[in-house]
């Protein structure tokens, strides 16, 4: 699926649903192990808390995963597709800042900080996600220190990769104009 053509008919309006638009759809039922982010570090027990087995949920292109300001209660792995993150800037509207791709984490602040989402997440194309309720994660963390260690190491690694990507984005944006 190419993404060089503008998606038509996507209007980011305030009147869209505030709830997650995830639905169970006709998506592959087996978790593609190779797509797991940082497979070597992936805490296998995380899969035990996936409701409904390892089925990925579908989000149609243009649908919203969550909105800026939502209180999010799930951590997601994007199994397939692309999700666009955007931030609302008064006077400018919703400004897209980053695209998240297959194998990446979304909404870790649901687990880490419990703060409202700082950006809106919208599917740029039909996507599949694995949803991990944060309460279940916390319960497991409390029960199982080994899991806790593996889980946080895994998240830290994902964060550092996101940071590197963001740094490259910034480096390019702030380059010497003659570069």
């Amino acid at each position, binding site marked *: *699926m190419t993404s060089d053509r503008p998606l038509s008919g996507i209007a980011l309006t305030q009147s869209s649903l505030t709830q997650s638009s995830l639905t169970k759809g006709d998506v592959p039922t087996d978790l593609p192990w190779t797509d797991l982010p940082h497979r070597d570090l992936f805490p296998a027990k995380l899969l035990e808390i996936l409701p409904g087995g390892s089925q990925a949920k579908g989000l149609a292109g243009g649908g919203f995963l969550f909105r800026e300001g939502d209180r999010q209660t799930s951590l997601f792995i994007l199994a397939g597709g692309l999700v666009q993150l955007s931030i609302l800037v008064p006077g400018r509207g919703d400004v897209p800042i980053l*695209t998240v791709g297959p194998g990446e984490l979304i909404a870790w602040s649901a687990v880490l900080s419990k703060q409202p989402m700082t950006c809106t997440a919208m599917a740029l194309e039909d996507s599949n996600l694995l949803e991990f309720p944060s309460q279940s994660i916390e319960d497991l963390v409390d029960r199982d220190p080994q899991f806790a260690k593996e889980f946080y190491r895994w998240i830290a690694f994902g964060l550092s990769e996101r940071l590197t990507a963001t740094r490259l984005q910034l480096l390019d944006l702030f380059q010497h104009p003659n570069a």
Partner: protein
Amino acid sequence: MSAWTTPSKDMPVSQDPWQPHRATIRRIVREIDSVASSVFTLEIELEPGPFAKRYRFMPGQFNMLYLPGSGEVAISHSGAPTGVASALPEGRFLHTIRAVGRVTRAIQRLEVGDSIGVRGPYGTAWPMENLLDQDVLIVSGGLGMAPLRPVIYSILDQVHRYGRVDLLYGSRSPDLILYESELGSWGACGIGIETTVDRTDPSGVHPWFGPIGPVTQWIQWRKSRTRYPDFDPHRTQVLICGPEVMMHFCAQSALEIGIMPSSIWISMERNMQCGFGACGHCQWGPFFLCKDGPVLRYDLAQGYLSIKDL
């Protein structure tokens, strides 16, 4: 070998390598005309004669373009190379130039019919032979697209001789996408086109609804079996061209998805004046980038890329 051996003392003195050859500007195309960047493409034609007759170039090579009174500048070929069906007639070629320094700004002021001097072709070429029967990932950052376009034209000429070919094109913002109008036709001919920008265009002149982020992500996402079920790092060659930092991180990402260092190629840039290894300016480690480069195989360059002020 003895310290005193002079291997080529009796070499014949042929045409002086400093001698520019006259060419005429036939066409000027404005590519990007924004506040940040002014980029244009010159179509030039060599004056008929022995030099024009024997002039051949390969993708990745460059010319030294000379404007008397201003100086010379190294500019990559950006048109279809010799031998490709879509190539211009003998002695004619394309150069995409950004007006950023004294010489390039002076060249920007030239008009159709004006003269310009040419020395070349110089440099190593993209390894087209290595790409046959392979999947090809072409990764371009900003104006790195210019030295890569001859590769695309070569591939399109005989697209059946290659496996899956994808272009990952990262640009700072939508208004700075080079050759944007051609991307669609390349896609229609079977090349997978994935473009991304670092940010959207704040002026709103170039609306953008596509992905945002560094082009390195598009390399990393190739691990996804669902998105790229046919991706096989063992039969994929990667060509990267763009700012040095971008090439460094893109090569790292390529390694992370299983590509071998000897299957990755980059194009390095340094100050070039002579084009043939005499003036010393373009040295980078052991390489004269004008003749051992600019295209280098990544495993040979890897150690030097991490030393930023080499």
